[in-house]
Every structure is written in C-alpha cells, then in structure tokens.
C-alpha cells in the first residue's frame, strides 16, 4: 500500500505549478462567464416579455443544492471566430446532468439569450453527445426549448443532413423507456418544432411558447397565407387544438414548476433500491492540492500517484504489479466508497506496461470494477528494442482490452495525451462513459514541436537524398507554422470545442466529478428501463 504523498504545498515547484494551473482554470471560468454575460445582456428583454433568462430557467428547474455536472461548456470554442478574445463557446445551450425532484436527469436549456438560441457551430455534435449520454446512462431528458433552430447565416449542408440524428435520438430515448420532457418557452420553428413533437411530455408557456413548422413570415412567403403566429403555433392553440402541448403554464416559472411536477409523477426511482451508504474516508491529501501537483511544462514528469492520493478514499490504494512495467500504473482504490481500477502513466507505455494494463483491465472486467484512466501519456515506446519486444502487438492488446471492456470507463486528460497512448488510455474514440479534460492538458497525434521537428528531419533527409541545399529559413518558417497548427489544436478548449470530450473541469473538482460519474453510471447499470419498439406516440 502506497499512501504517503511526496509532494506537499511546501515542495519546490508546487506554488508555480498551482499558479499556472489556476491561471488555466481562470481561463476556463472566464470563457464560461463571457458566454453567460453575453446571454444575460438580454436579461431586460426577457423580463419585459414576462420571461426569465435561460440561466434563471436552469436555476429553477434544478433541485437547488443537489449536484450538477456541466457538460460541453466549451462547444464551438474558436469555431465562431479565430479570436480567442472574442469566441463565445457553449453559446447554444447550457447542459449537464442534474437533479430534478431528486431524479438524476439530462438537462438542456436553450440559450436563447444568444442569437435567439440558434444553433451555433459544433452545437449539433454537443446535443447529440448529450442525448447519447442520456441513452447510455438511462437519464430522463429534459429540454427547455426556445430556439430559432438552424442558423441560416452559417448554413452547412452537413449540419442539416446529420442534424436529423437529434430527432432520431429523441425517438430512441422514448423507445428505450427514457421519458423526454420539453418546456416550450418561446418560438421553436422548423426543426425546432420537432423538439416538442418528439417529446413525451410538453409544457407550453402561455403567450410566449410557440411551435410551428413555419412561422408567419415563411408561411406568407410559401403560400401567401396571412397567418398569425398564435394561430400557427401558440402554446394555447397547441394545448386545446393540435394536442402538441399537454400542460399550459402561466409563465416560464410556472411551466418549469409543472415540468418538475411531471418528473415527480414519474416516480422514476420507485423500483430502485436505495444505495446503501458506504463508509469511507475523505482523502488524507486535500483534492485542492491537485492544482499544484502537475507541472505546467508537460515535458516535466510527475508521479501520477500524487494525483491518485488526492482522488481516492483515505488516500489509500493498492498497486498491481508495481515492479513490472513500472511506468504504467495499475492501481486499486475506491472513490466515494466505490471500488475502482485506475490506470495512469508515469512515462511512455512499454511492452511490460501494456501487458500489465491489459491484464489489469481484464481483471477489472471480470469483477465488474469501473476503470478510471488518468492520462498523461506521450504514447507507446518506440525504438528497436521495443519494436523487437513486440510493442505493436502488446499495445494492440491493450487497445483491444480497452475497446472491449464493458465496465464503466471514465477518462481524465490530466496532462499529455499523445499518439496511440490516447487510444490505449481510453481516449474519446474509445467511448468512455465520461471524459473530461483538465485545462492544462494537451492532446494530439504528437506535440507541435515534435511534429515540426519530424517534418524538418524528413525535409532534410529528402534534400540530402536529392543533394540540394536545405533552405533553413524556409524550414524554420515551416516549423513555426506546423507547431502553430498542432499547438492550436492541442488546447483542451479547442478539442472540447469540437466535442472531443464532455467538458473541461477544474482539476480540484476531479474527485467529485469522478464520484458523480461513478454514481451516474452505477445507477444506470442497476436500472431496468421499460423499453418498447416505437416510443411514446404523441396523440
């Protein structure tokens, strides 16, 4: 058992590490705050219309004080503009897993304070991701709808074609036995109209709630009919005439209270056994110190066990095969009383490490133990010795084990995540149940500097072969360009912006995030849903 931490707040480098990490966290929070501020600029307009803002809606929907795991807050980072000072990530909706009337649920609140809730870049991917998490984690899906739909100014044929998945997923949620609940707060036209259409329960807000395949302007353009929005799709009309709305709320606040009541009536946990309280100790090392453990410079190694003692119960863990492939850590511990297998990196993965990891993953699979991957990997070891030792086949085995393990998988990008190491350590393509990045982390096929140098080496070799002079000046410029391309895409805000994870978190929250995810997955695995072949048909 290894429990003594070597790093303390007094250790050399701790203060600098922490300062750098908190700077990165501040950057994350500033980006989230920028989006919130932009949305809240419209606060007065919302209130004038008798509405409340999207964030106020979220506040009222959630059980106050119950935990909330925000998802995809960086969606579209730098996709709207190239200016990091101006980009407004996560602008389309505010989403996450939270509790409503004690029920863990997937929650999506259209951010109609920004571009009237029209779909921003990458938002479709994020929406689909949220739906897929709901499907996989058996979460009721609650959507507070007020969206102008697709942004015609940024029309992309792919978005239109692939966007259908949003509605496909709603249908599948319903058929899987997962209630879909929508509150129609404001105009929701064209594709947006199918949001309520494909929901099992719709609460409409009087006067402001509106859903129509085409609003008055489009109807006039298409058919010449001079129609009124209220007649085309007003909530009152839908409640009494079309049957699209089940419950009519007086205003936003009332409608949200009704949505909560709908959830209450699901009695969603009626067949679930209450989880038995497990006694466990908080870590002896404060998780707050996670901010000071990881050096800013990813080339500086750190002992991943320093993370683990700050994440697991009582700071206690057992190490599996500590002396075999020691750079790849396989640890047994518990988080909030839930036993987990942890894989972490103290260096490149070598053949022994890959073998150990494979063995460990399979053993966890056998026992049904959730796996947690703490990524700080520069990849699989290269070089003659390692190739000859079967690095390819051992690495492949590890990837096979990860890809096919059915136990819950949770991945954190805690530092470097490069090359095939990302795959072996359950990167995004390996569909971990949950995947979060720390704001200091970097990912990519390789580091920018390494990529640039590789390309220069290739160029030099080519020039030597042809016997021509190397243009060092051009090469230096090329290196800078390559490094720029790689580094820009390695940023966690950038990758998160492209939905290559589920969000960026404050490292100090990691223990709680892992616990939340473990509880979410645990509930899903214990829950029987009442699936049917069609879903709940709207009558």
């Amino acid at each position: 058992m290894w429990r003594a931490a070597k790093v303390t707040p007094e250790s050399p480098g701790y203060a600098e590490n922490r300062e750098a990490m908190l700077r990165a966290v501040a950057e994350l929070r500033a980006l989230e705050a920028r989006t919130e501020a932009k949305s809240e600029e419209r606060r007065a307009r919302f209130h004038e219309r008798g509405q409340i803002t999207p964030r106020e809606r979220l506040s009222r929907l959630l059980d106050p004080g119950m935990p909330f795991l925000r998802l995809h807050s960086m969606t579209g980072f730098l996709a709207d503009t190239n200016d990091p000072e101006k980009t407004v990530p996560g602008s389309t909706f505010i989403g996450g897993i939270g509790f409503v009337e004690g029920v863990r649920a997937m929650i999506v609140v259209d951010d109609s304070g920004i571009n009237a809730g029209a779909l921003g870049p990458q938002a479709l991917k994020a929406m689909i991701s949220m739906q897929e998490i709901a499907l996989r984690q058996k979460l009721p899906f609650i959507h507070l709808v007020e969206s102008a739909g697709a942004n015609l100014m940024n029309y992309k044929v792919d978005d239109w074609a692939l966007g259908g998945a949003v509605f496909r997923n709603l249908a599948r949620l319903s058929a899987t036995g997962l209630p879909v609940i929508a509150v129609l707060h404001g105009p929701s036209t064209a594709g947006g109209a199918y949001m309520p259409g494909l929901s099992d329960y719709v609460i409409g807000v009087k006067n402001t709630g509106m859903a129509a395949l085409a609003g008055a302007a489009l109807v006039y353009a298409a058919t010449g009919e001079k129609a009124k929005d209220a007649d085309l799709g007003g909530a009152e009309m839908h409640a009494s005439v079309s049957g699209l709305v089940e419950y009519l709320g007086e205003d936003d606040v009332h409608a949200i209270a009704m949505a909560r009541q709908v959830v209450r009536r699901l009695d969603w946990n009626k067949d679930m056994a209450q989880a038995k309280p497990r006694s466990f100790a908080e870590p002896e090392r404060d998780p707050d110190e996670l901010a000071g453990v990881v050096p800013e410079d990813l080339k500086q190694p750190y002992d991943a066990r320093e993370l683990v003692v700050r994440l697991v119960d009582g700071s206690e863990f057992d190490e599996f095969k500590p002396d075999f492939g020691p750079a790849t850590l396989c640890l047994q511990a518990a988080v909030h009383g839930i036993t987990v297998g942890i894989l972490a990196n103290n260096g490149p993965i070598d053949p022994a490490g890959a073998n150990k990891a494979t063995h460990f993953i399979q053993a966890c699979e056998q026992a049904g133990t959730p796996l947690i991957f703490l990524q700080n990997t520069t990849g699989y070891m290269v070089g003659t010795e390692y190739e000859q030792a079967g690095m390819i086949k051992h690495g492949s085995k590890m990837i096979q084990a990860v890809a096919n393990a059915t136990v819950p998988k949770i991945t954190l990008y805690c530092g470097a995540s490069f090359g095939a190491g990302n795959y072996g350590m359950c990167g995004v393509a390996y569909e971990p149940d949950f995947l979060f990045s720390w704001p200091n982390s970097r990912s990519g096929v390789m580091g920018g500097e390494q990529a640039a140098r590789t390309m220069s080496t290739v160029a030099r070799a080519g020039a030597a072969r042809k016997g021509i002079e190397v243009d060092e000046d051009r090469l230096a410029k090329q290196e800078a360009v390559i490094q720029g391309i790689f580094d820009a895409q390695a940023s966690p805000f950038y990758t998160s912006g492209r939905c290559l994870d589920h969000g960026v978190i404050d490292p100090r929250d990691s223990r709680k995030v892992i616990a939340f995810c473990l509880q979410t997955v645990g509930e899903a695995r214990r829950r029987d849903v009442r699936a049917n072949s069609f879903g709940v048909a709207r009558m």
Partner: protein
Amino acid sequence: MGFDRVLVANRGEIACRVIRSARSMGLSTVAVYSDADVGAPHVGMADMAVRIGAAPAGESYLDGEAVLRAAQETGAGAVHPGYGFLSENAEFAQAVADAGMLFVGPPAEAIEAMGDKAAAKRVMEEAGIPCVPGYHGAEQTDKRLVEEGERIGFPLMVKAAAGGGGKGMRLVSDAAELPEALERARSEGRAAFGSDALILEKAIVKARHVEIQVFADAHGSCIHLGERDCSVQRRHQKVIEEAPAPGMSDALRAEMGEAAVRAAEAVGYVGAGTVEFLLDDEGFYFLEMNTRLQVEHPVTEMVTGLDLVEMQLRVAQGEALEMTQADVRFEGHAIEARLYAEDAANGFLPATGRIAHWQAGKSEGIRVDAGIESGSEVTPYYDPMLAKVIAWGADREEARVRLLEALQESACLGVTTNTGFLSVVLQDAAFVQGGVTTGYLDEAFAAGVEAGGMASEEIAAAVALILWQEVRAARAVSLMADDLMIGFASDGGRFIPVDLDGFAAGIRVVGPKEWVVCGDGWEHVVHLERIDGARAGLRIDGRRKVVWFAGDGKGGLYLQCGAVARHVERQVPGGGNVDLALDGAVIAPMPGQVVALDVAEGDRVEQGQRLAVLEAMKMQHQLVADMAGVVESVQVAQGGQVTGGQVIVVIGEEKA
C-alpha cells in the same frame, strides 16, 4: 365519601393539568372530547376517554347531560370541571351531585350565589366587603338601566350578571353609548351564559386587578393563599399574571385576604375559589368571585409550593385542609404568560391551523402547562389559549427574565401566536417597573404590536433552511448514498432565486451546509452547524443563532427567531392555484339540454349547491356551484340546448 376515578369535564391545558395531579394521587382519569379534539393531548393522557359530541362547545363541552352520561358510563366518582365551560354552572354541579357523584368545586348554592353578579354584590355588601358602587337590581328595562347609569356616573362598566372572563363586559364612557352597550352586552351574555341580565358598575379606571386565592374545606376551615396581580389585560382578558402583586404590603395582603375569606364564608364556600378585587390608591373593591380554579392558579402554586388541584380533589374527597392560615408561606415571585393563538399585528384576531411544531422551554424555574403538542389542530371552536408559561424567580426581576428566555426557547410553529407580543410586553418599561393598572395594555399597545419587517438575517435563515429542506427531500428520492456531493457543481454553481411572499431573495450554494443568501441590498453567509429536530443551530456571518423551524408543506416554512414566530410563505408559481372552476363561471361539460335550472339571478348559493341539470348522452349531469356567492347571471333557459363549454351560470362574490 371517596372516589377513585375522576372525569375531567374540560379540554386543553387545564384538562391535562388536572389529569396530571389526579394521576399522581393514584386516581384513574376520564377525559371527554368533542369531534374536534379526537387527537388532542388530554385525550391521550387520560386512562379513558369518551366522545361527548360535535365540535361546537354547545354540543359537547357545554352539554352537561352528555358529560354526566360519560361520567356515569365510565363509573367516575367525581367530576372536575376545570375552568370555563360547566365550571360555574350551578345546575350542572347540582346534577352531578344528584347523580351521586362529587362535583370538584363549591356547592351548587355557592356557585349560584356568586354566579349572579347582582345578587353576589348584595351579599358582599351585607358581609361588609367593600364593593364598587353600581346597580345590581332585578329590574332590567333599558329605562331603569339608563337612569341607574346616570346616577352612578361615567365611565361605567356594563356586565352580564352571569358573566365572567371578560365576556359580556363593556366600558361605557358617556351616556350616549349606553343603549348600544346594553344591547351588545345582553346578546353576548345570552350567547355565552344563557342569561341577558346585566349589572352596572362605576368604572374604576386607574385600578389594578388583584385577586385573592381562597381555599375552604367542608369542615368549616377557610384560608387564603395570597394574591395574584392580573392587571395586564387586553380588553378584559388576562394576558400576564403574577404573584405576589408588585408593591403588595403584608398588611394589605392580610386585609384583602381576610376580606376574601369572609366573602367565601358568606356563601358557604368549599374548595378553591378566587375573590377578585380592584385595587387603587384609595382602597380595594370587591369585583366578583370565581367559584372555580383560575387559569392563573400556577403562579400561586409556584410561590406557595402547593398543588391546588390536589387540594381540590382532597377537599372534594371530604378531607380537611391540612394547613392553617399561619402555615401558608410565600417564597419568591412567579409570573405567568398566556400563549394565545392570535395575531397581535392584526387586531389580535384568533388564529387557527395545525401546530407544525411545539416544544416547551425547559430552563430553570420554568413550568409550562400546555394543551397542545406537535401536530395539534387549533380549531376555531374554543378559546385560543394554547399554553401557559410560568416562571419562578427569587425575585420579580429574575422571574421576568426567566419567563422572557423561556418564551424565546419555547417553539410554537404553524399557528400565529402572541409570543412576540408577550416578549415585547415583558420588556416594556412600565411592566418591568411593575404595578401597572388594568388599562395598561390597551393604552400602551392600542394598535397591537407591529409585526415589524423581518430582519435580513431572519430572511437569510429562512431561505437557507428552505433550501436545506428541499435538498433533504431531493436527496431522499435520489439514489445518492452520501451527502458529500451536495452543493457540488462542476461549473461553479449558480444563483438560485427563492420567491417568498412579499420579498425576493436568492441563494448560492457554497457547500453542503453553507450558503450565501442575498436580498434587497444585503447578503449573509449562512452556515448550518446543527439540526436537532426542529431546532437549527446556524452561524450567520459568523454569529451563532438558534432558530426553530418547520416546513409548511407548501415550499415555505415556519421560523421562530427569539420569541417571534413567522410564516415565511413561498410564492406559488403561476400566480396562485389557477383553477378555472373558481372564477365563478359554471360551464356545460358537453353538449346537451338543460332539464333543470335551480337558480335565478341574485340568488345566494352555497358551495356544492346544485345549479342546473344537463341531460346529454342519456346521462344527467349535475352542475354545482364551485364557490359560495351570488348568482350574477343565468345565461340559459330551462329546456334550452347548450354546446360544450357554454357558460350556464356565473357566480360572483357576495358583496359585504
């Protein structure tokens, strides 16, 4: 003649009080109850309990026959009437005796003699006891009463001759008001005592109400147990009583005590009784004699160390008093405060409702006589007094401070009470000094007491506890095994609006038991340190504060900070309970024919009353009034055909 089972013909705190002493003497007890009191504490305390009728007192606790039947059926040997209800009903006392049981009180003749205020005055005057000048004659014409009123002079008091407890009593300041006062006093007297006979008395305006507790046995022995000062009255209802009376000299006590004993002896008194006097600078005047145990008897018990109920029961058993006047000792000072279900900030209107939480203060020198418990219903049928808190101290000041603290440490949530008012009075300079006159409360607190706005700390405490309750509720439904995730939000959390009735507040969760609450221009950090049932130990901006709280079942809560309990109501989303049925429009549920129409425009209707019958699909649908009111319009004719959703009748609110 002995008995081993006593029926307590009362309810509330006094029934509990009597049962307690009876049980300690080894007697078996029988409680009686009305339909409104099925679950009342006194019912549970007694060995047996008998239902005696419907909720209204006239159909239960005032129904002598029903009480007597209960006593006979349960084999009770005695009936203790408590105070109020049948306690001063000579007929009932006689009926109890006639049925071969003992009435724990004086002989019927004594009740009768003192029950008729007019006759009593005459007897007292004959016995040489100073009386207030007045008219106690048998002639009850308005003419005679007005004449007598002018003779006595104004201001004067009009009282129901059979009255007591402030009912049927009016102060008249000039002749012009007299006729109306007579009429009112008569009707109140009729309603409360079944008699409309009145007496007139000169109003002694700047006097104190000082009464003497007397005790007589059936063997000719009669002693007094000192005085009680009950001058702190609100509209003739005692609110705070104490013993001894502030500034009372031994000589005056002896003089008044001797007069009281003489008064009791004049009517052949047996048992516990109280002779009430008005005391002013010039002397004391006989007011009336209450031939029963008084509400405020505990202050006497606390300064004498006696158990008056036990003494009553012993005397009723035929025992002789064990003590003589010389044995009576007084020690220290006792003050009693009556806890009423009433709204001091709203004209002292009686309050009703369910007591969400009741906890009597338990500090040193404190006695609480309560007739309620957590979950009790306070109904409109009976006196709104819920409990009495009595404090004993070595001196008056110690008793006062203890009482004040006890009020603040007693919790009564769910029903508006006068605890806040009581604590204001207990701290009022005039009361602190002592010796106030009977006009004191009505003058000093003419407008009642302002409820006062809630301090921002109180709102913060309320909001935090509301949130805490919601988290508890959500947590109970959720499958979370531990509390450690409470308050966690990976995005740093959010501001949560909490709409309270009357003000908006918001809260931000800092930790599982820590919040920042903000309101209009203020912000407080609230930390929940401890929860012990309904008691919460909070730290607000670092300062410790203990509060009592209980949810109201509607998202809000009852909160008591210090002595003041409040109902912090939550706004109902959607502008209240939107119920279309209650807008007064009665609509046809489906197409059909109106085969009966029961009402016309202007008719008064009760809730649930049939208005019309609609025949449709071979079924007759009764259309009933959803609310009481007046029919504003009838929009169909009998026999008429209507469509679904058509308005049939519109009911409006009755104009006062």
